[in-house]
């Protein structure tokens, strides 16, 4: 009886549900088909045929079409210079310059994966193919499979259906794409220009890549300290050797092959090579030397690279040729908001000056009108530190600091420093000099006009940082752009791993760790690229990475278009006692 009653109740509930579901389904189908019908009705008004497209673009230079298309895609600016209008969430008007195509589909057009939002590729090569719940040739690679099944299937786009999608937000199945994707209003000609550009995105294989090999090179400027060069090369060569060993092992052992295929898919069989491009003579000749190397051996990307001084010619060459350069070891990187192809470990020496400016900004009100003085040694390092401070300080809106530049070859003496302090009576004094500043700064102890704090560069002081006299430690603050040594010791094991048993004292401890970054980031990025080895996609993939924790820097972070991985610096003081530790006086001060 009891069971029958339950069954009756269940069937009654089920009947109610069925009835409800019927109405729900009816409403859904009605909505779906009405939207589809709307899209089909709108189609003739929003899109034109491929024949019309050719007519619309007739007489236009191909390079000009691509330039204008790139501008729409990357900046949201129409050919007439006006912002591309669009609507999100149905009817909320937005400015296309704030909702550009590139911000989600990225520069390569191969899409992004951020949180739970997958932005599908928007390049012609993929759009004009039907989307299946698998990627051909990569059906059994777990992470690619997971990606493929996440996106709904659809037939191949045509020019007309693609134009309809951009205008109405409906794909060829009548499915509405996510509401955050704007529906853009543009003329048929502008649409033709944009689609012509999409057709070229990631459509040709990048140089230096084929089915069996990815070629890399590293640039070494002649005259760089051999120990520094060795420290830069060792982690990169370790990564490449390990990768190639795995490829060999996979070719000989089916179990290794299966494991490797599950992890890295078609990357398993691909070997890596690393050439050394050595630049000789004056930097004005480097461009030609690079051209010659590249002509003989086109590479997919440059890894690392090292110089004692200038890097700009290499940076410019990479911009011109569209070659990514991952983390060259340079003290003076090219600072640019727009350049795309070179990723630096940090903003170099100047980053310490920038951190000092931000630190002083937080206490500026307490200076009560007293000045800030920068004493700058006449060399490139000190000038870079001072420039970093000056430019960041200017952004805060405070009156500029007083700059005192020492004569070339002049060292700061106690007498000179006391004169400056007596004259300027600064609240804060920045001394951009090497260890020779320590005796001069020591002479300020007990003086009535002693500044509240003196700031120096931890990296410029070098090992002398540990020899700061006890009486100076109280008021000498130092910029320190790395994780503190006592904390970085946890990462020693990781850093030593790339040395393959070689003694670490043969290497520069900073450079080996900077180069470790190159090896790790390259490996992670290639694994995430779904077999799409395009240069822009390499940089897009790195740009979408979460914060990473490696030896040396407190953290490295990325973002689309961000080109300086470590963005922070500590302000520290040397602790008391005979075996002092560095003590943090600030958080990881970021840009």
């Amino acid at each position, binding site marked *: 009886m009891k069971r029958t009653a339950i069954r009756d109740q269940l069937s009654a509930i089920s009947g109610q549900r069925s009835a409800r579901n019927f109405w729900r389904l009816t409403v859904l189908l009605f909505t779906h088909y009405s939207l589809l019908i709307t899209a089909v009705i709108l189609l003739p008004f929003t899109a034109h045929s491929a024949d019309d497209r050719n007519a619309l673009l007739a007489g236009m230079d191909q390079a000009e079409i691509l330039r204008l298309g790139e501008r729409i895609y990357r900046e949201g600016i129409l050919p007439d210079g006006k912002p591309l209008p669009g609507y999100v969430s149905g009817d909320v008007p937005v400015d296309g310059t704030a909702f550009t195509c590139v911000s989600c589909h990225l520069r390569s057009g191969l899409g992004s994966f951020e949180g739970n939002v997958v932005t599908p590729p928007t390049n012609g090569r993929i759009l004009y193919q039907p989307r299946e719940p698998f990627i051909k040739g990569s059906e059994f690679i777990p992470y690619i499979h997971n990606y493929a099944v996440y996106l709904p299937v659809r037939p191949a786009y045509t020019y007309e259906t693609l134009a309809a999608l951009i205008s109405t937000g409906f794909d060829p199945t009548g499915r509405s794409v996510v509401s955050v994707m704007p529906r853009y209003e543009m003329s048929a000609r502008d649409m033709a220009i944009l689609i012509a550009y999409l057709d070229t995105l990631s459509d040709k294989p990048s140089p230096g890549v084929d089915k069996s090999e990815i070629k890399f090179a590293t640039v070494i400027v002649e005259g760089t300290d051999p120990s520094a060069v060795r420290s830069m090369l060792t982690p990169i060569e370790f990564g490449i050797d390990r990768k190639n060993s795995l490829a060999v092992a996979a070719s000989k052992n089916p179990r290794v092959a299966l494991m490797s295929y599950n992890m890295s898919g078609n990357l398993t069989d691909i070997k890596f090579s690393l050439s050394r491009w050595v630049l000789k003579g004056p930097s004005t000749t480097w461009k030609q030397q690079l051209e010659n190397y590249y002509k003989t051996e086109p590479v997919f990307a440059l890894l690392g690279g090292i110089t004692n001084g200038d890097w700009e010619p290499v940076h410019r060459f990479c911009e011109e040729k569209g070659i990514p350069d991952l983390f060259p070891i340079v003290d003076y990187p090219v600072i640019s908001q727009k350049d795309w192809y070179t990723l630096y470990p940090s903003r170099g020496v100047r980053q310490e000056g920038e951190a000092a400016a931000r*630190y002083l900004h*937080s*206490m500026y*009100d*307490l*200076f009560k009108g007293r000045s800030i003085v920068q004493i700058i040694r006449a060399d490139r390092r000190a000038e870079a530190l001072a420039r970093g401070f000056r430019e960041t300080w200017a952004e805060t809106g405070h009156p500029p600091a007083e700059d005192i530049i020492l004569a070339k070859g002049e060292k700061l003496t106690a007498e000179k420093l006391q004169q400056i302090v007596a004259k300027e009576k600064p*609240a804060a004094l920045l001394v951009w000099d090497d260890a020779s500043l320590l005796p001069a700064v020591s002479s300020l102890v007990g003086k009535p006009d002693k500044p*509240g*704090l003196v700031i120096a560069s931890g990296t410029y002081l070098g090992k002398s940082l540990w020899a700061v006299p006890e009486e100076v430690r109280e*008021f000498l603050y130092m910029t320190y752009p790395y*994780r503190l040594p006592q*904390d970085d010791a*946890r*990462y020693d*094991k*990781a850093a030593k791993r790339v040395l393959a048993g070689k003694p670490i004292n043969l290497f520069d401890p900073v450079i080996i760790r900077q180069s470790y970054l190159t090896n790790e980031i390259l490996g992670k990025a290639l694994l995430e690229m779904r077999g799409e080895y395009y240069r822009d996609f390499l940089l897009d993939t790195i740009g979408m990475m979460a*914060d990473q*924790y490696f030896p040396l820097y*407190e*953290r490295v972070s990325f973002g689309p278009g961000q080109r300086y991985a470590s963005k922070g610096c*500590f302000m520290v003081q040397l602790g008391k006692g005979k*075996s002092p530790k560095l003590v*943090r*006086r*600030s*958080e*990881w001060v970021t840009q």
Partner: protein
Amino acid sequence: MTGQARGSGLLAMGIGSSLLALRLSPIAYRLLPIFITLFALPAAAAAETPEKVYVVNDYRYVPANVSDDRDTGLSLCGTRCNALTTDFLNITEVGGWQLMKGAVNTEVTVELNSPFIKGQCICVADEYLVKIDDRYSEERRRPGKRK
């Protein structure tokens, strides 16, 4: 080797030297400091206190004088307490280390340590002990296992 362990080793060497007065055979004399060191090291390691780190949740400023600027003091305490805090991923991401949660919302007092304003910062923080969790290290592998 930790500072304490190194200290204990040197101490052992010192004891070894002080035994010079005893008439031991040359070999025994050479080996004695090593034995003493071996005995002293585990004791020193056991005495080592685990590192304590903080994740700061809140902070406030306690002025030293009535005239101290409270707003600026609070702002500087923000920097000071943030300097105390730890990005825990820095510890756990490398592998081989774990954090054991201790006190929650404990108040840690630090001197503001500014040349321009006196006072103290009260950093409200969760306390963690940093513990080695190197379960895959070679030292912890069973004897006879392939390294």
